[in-house]
């Protein structure tokens, strides 16, 4: 297995012409920031749920209500709805709460997951304040016929099966992924209890299909179905058992056409988000929410000069949402964005972007982004980026029965960052410092009548450092080592009180080490999360302790062309007693075995 990590900036990336990524903006318009890409080999080293993969490999902090339960991110000290999640370039944050539950994503459905720190609303829309997470299906236009079956079985009857099939020629390409994950999830708590009613199962099916009609036209289809059911674990045995079902589909059709110096991409997308919550399993009753979103997008880029590109993106998003406490509401948002990219010299480039939305729902702010990269030598380059971003009020915020507030403003973020990248032989170190001022934060607060309503209340200022280190070395052509590490230092404080936001650690560290020798492969993972506050007044009496978790895996490749890999993994080998949410223990030491078969 190769290192699996790829830090990319446009400068260092020479994308294979044959590999197509529909979220091309991620590569083309990330001037001035780092993009961290996790390849499928990294994905196989972690549990199938997205929380686990990102927690051990990126600076994003996760608040997880026990293994596999509700999980929300804090990216660069922001709130759960301030990380945008993009599926093949389409924003899939929930229409209802603006967040994505990272344990409702099965990573087996994608062959590439990227993470970009910092604002991205100009291109990606609402929620891209702390950063964005990109779930991508790539299409390879080359002669290809590849099966990959990955099977994993472990403690608590945890089953994880992922199958991918890739088929391609220079004219068409198919990428199919089927993934299923289930677990009894009945691990023991350090205090003697057991994780009751924590079982879950989910299935994801994802297909990407591309066809080049001729030199100038091609058509691509992406489609995903996710079906998951989770019981929510109980802290105490007598508690009311509940469960949650998700049935989500995402569909994207795109037509790309080039003429002269223009390239146009027309996209139609349809998203169906449907959940049911069973608040008491002794009864049949449930509450639900369902949102159907239809997106039409026209993306036109024009190469003014060899080194200067202009790009306009027009998007219309129409959502029909209904739910138990929401009634039925439609909303339409039209967005226009203008982007420009200019390679001024071989060692200097910059980009500009603007976006404005028109909607009857909220007062839309003018958004911008500006970024530049300057190479000072082969060893050293500097990046800068500044942007204004937003998070729009959600269906719950606007329409919740007798509590919704139709007068809410979007949350707004003005931020800047400066980053340095050092490259020395196989060592790469990047350090980014940032400052982010978030205003009009939407918070649900009890009114004097006791009813909780959303209001634009808080201002938060966030600053910190984010750093990544990558290194690899081969000794005597046999021993291959690699190291990937991240560190995040985060101050995120309420501007009025000066207190750090709850559930934002000052420190988070991840490290992954790989060692390969002939057919043997070993991997060590570490995660350190510093102390977090759980009370808004930072009363340390209630803090959650810091924790360090380590995982170790070892595998051996069999077969003439090493097409089988058989291995095992020890998760949390320190047997650390830890919780990322008050009263929600995570599992102690546990084991898995896996088989990876390629054909």
């Amino acid at each position, binding site marked *: 297995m190769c290192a699996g990590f790829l830090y990319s900036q446009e400068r260092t990336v020479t994308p294979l012409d044959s590999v197509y990524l529909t979220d091309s903006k991620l590569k083309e318009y990330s001037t001035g920031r780092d993009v961290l890409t996790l390849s499928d080999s990294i994905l196989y080293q972690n549990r199938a749920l997205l929380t686990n993969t990102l927690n051990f490999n990126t600076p994003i902090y996760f608040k997880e*209500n026990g293994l596999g339960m509700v999980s929300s991110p804090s990216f660069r000290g922001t709130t759960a709805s301030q990380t945008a999640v993009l599926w093949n370039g389409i924003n899939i944050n929930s229409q209802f709460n603006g967040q994505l539950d990272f344990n409702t994503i099965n990573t087996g459905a994608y062959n590439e997951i990227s993470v970009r720190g910092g604002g991205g609303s100009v291109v990606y829309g609402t929620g891209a304040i702390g950063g964005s997470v990109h779930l991508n299906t790539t299409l390879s236009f080359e002669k290809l016929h590849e099966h990959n079956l990955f099977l994993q079985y472990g403690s608590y009857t945890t089953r994880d099966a992922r199958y991918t099939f890739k088929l391609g020629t220079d004219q068409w390409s198919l990428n199919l992924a089927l993934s299923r994950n289930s677990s009894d999830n009945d691990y023991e708590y350090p205090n003697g209890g057991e994780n009751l009613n924590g079982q879950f199962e989910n299935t994801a099916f994802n297909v990407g299909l591309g066809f080049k009609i001729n030199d100038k036209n091609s058509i691509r289809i992406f489609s995903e179905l996710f079906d998951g059911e989770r019981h929510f674990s109980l*802290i*105490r*045995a*007598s*508690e*009311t058992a509940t469960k949650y079902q998700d049935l989500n589909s995402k569909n994207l059709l795109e037509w790309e056409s080039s003429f002269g110096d223009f390239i146009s991409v027309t996209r139609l997308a349809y998203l169906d988000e449907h959940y049911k919550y069973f*608040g*008491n399993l*002794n*009864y049949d*009753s449930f*509450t639900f929410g369902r949102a159907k979103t239809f997106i039409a997008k026209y993306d036109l880029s024009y190469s003014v000069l060899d080194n200067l590109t202009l790009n306009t993106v027009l998007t219309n998003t129409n959502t029909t949402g209904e739910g138990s406490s929401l009634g039925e509401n439609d909303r339409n948002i039209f967005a226009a964005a203008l982007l420009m990219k200019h390679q001024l010299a071989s060692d200097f480039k910059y980009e500009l972007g603007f976006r404005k939305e028109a909607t009857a729902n909220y007062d839309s702010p003018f958004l911008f982004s500006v970024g530049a990269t300057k190479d000072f030598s082969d060893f050293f380059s500097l990046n800068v980026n500044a942007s204004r971003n937003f998070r729009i009020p959600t269906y719950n915020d606007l329409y919740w029965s*007798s509590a919704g507030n139709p007068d809410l403003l979007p949350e707004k973020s003005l931020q800047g960052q400066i980053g340095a990248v050092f490259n020395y032989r196989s060592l790469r170190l990047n350090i980014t410092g940032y400052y982010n001022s978030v205003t009009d934060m939407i918070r649900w607060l*009890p*009114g*004097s*009548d*006791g009813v909780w309503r959303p209001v634009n209340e808080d201002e938060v200022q966030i600053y910190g450092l984010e750093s990544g280190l990558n290194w690899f070395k081969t000794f005597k052509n046999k021993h291959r080592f690699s190291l990937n590490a991240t560190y995040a230092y985060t101050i995120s404080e309420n501007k009025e009180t000066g207190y750090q936001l*709850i559930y934002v650690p000052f420190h988070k560290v991840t490290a992954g080490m790989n060692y390969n020798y002939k057919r043997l492969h070993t991997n060590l993972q570490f995660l350190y999360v510093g102390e977090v506050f*759980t*009370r*808004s*007044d930072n*009363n340390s009496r209630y803090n959650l302790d810091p924790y360090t978790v380590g995982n170790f895996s070892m595998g051996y490749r069999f077969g003439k062309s090493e097409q089988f890999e058989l291995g095992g993994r020890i998760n949390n080998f320190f047997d650390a007693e830890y919780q990322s*949410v*008050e*009263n*929600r223990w995570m599992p102690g030491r546990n084991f898995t075995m896996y088989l990876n078969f390629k054909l």
Partner: protein
Amino acid sequence: MKINKLSLLALLGVFILNSCSNDDDNLEPLPEGDYTDGFFVTNEGMFEGRGTVSFISDDLQTSDIDVYSTVNPSESDLGQFVQSIFFDEDNAYVISNGSNYITVVDRYTFEYIGVIDSELSIPRYGEVVNGKAYVTNQGDFSTGADDYVVVIDLETLTVENTLIIGNKIDKLEEEDGLIYIQGSAFNDGNSINVLDPTSNSITTTYTTEGSLNSFDIEDGFIYALTRKDVEGTDPLEKVAYLEKIDLATGNRSTQIVFSQATSVAKNLTIEDDTIYYMIGTSVYKIALSTSEEPLQDLLTFSGNLAYGFDVEDDRIFIAQGTFDSDSFVEIYSTNGSLLKNITVGLGPNGFYFN
């Protein structure tokens, strides 16, 4: 050396007190325990956390923010969302409505005795009558049809009977051997169900005209604060009523029609023939027989959400609804002057007096 002197003094003190009470064999033994003279505050706690109980001494000079953990550091916690406490002679019963159990402790020492953890589903409030506890349960939130009262044998701490009431239920109050159950939850519902503990059945159901917020019983009458929406107002306005029901005849009359507002009268409680209630963060005080809305409030609470409210022994108790950090309560005299502001746990919702 200082410590020794103090210990000696304490020992002597105990000796002297003991000798005093021993002098008179006819006196009932005084309840012993650190929490004899004072009151408890129930704190709901965070969604993902555990509820707590704070103790405050009668002289308001000492308090303990989490008395259960202080006394019982190794016992399991009081559960999610501590909703209320009810007492019998010796014990306090602490209801957790998120965890569906009731923790039994000594009411004077707060030492753990046991737990009742079966057949409860979102338990809310309890009362003890004739040695049995009656506890309201909401069950499925979406309907009142399944709401029920459990009858608990306090000797065995087991549920011996389950009585389906059939409408939303919440607080209950014992009066002359009958149990009066508030037939509404979160202002949804308009009945008062009367449960006769001798037959374990509902003998009478009174209905109020508006939706019921709170009620109290005094001198043979139910006094109820109710409310109705005023149609066509935006933001929605409501009008509150003080309704009066004669227990003997069941006759209902409207004693006061309050002026309409977005925030209306709530939290009625009667103490010494005086009705106390709140509008927003203001406390009002009227005579039992008054049919006029008062012009002036008695006091304004310094917090922004009065989440718990009570009047007892010439003092008014208000708890601030803060749900992201420890909160506070304020104690006022019945003439409206602030006596003390004291820190308690997160989400304080009620006061229980020893």
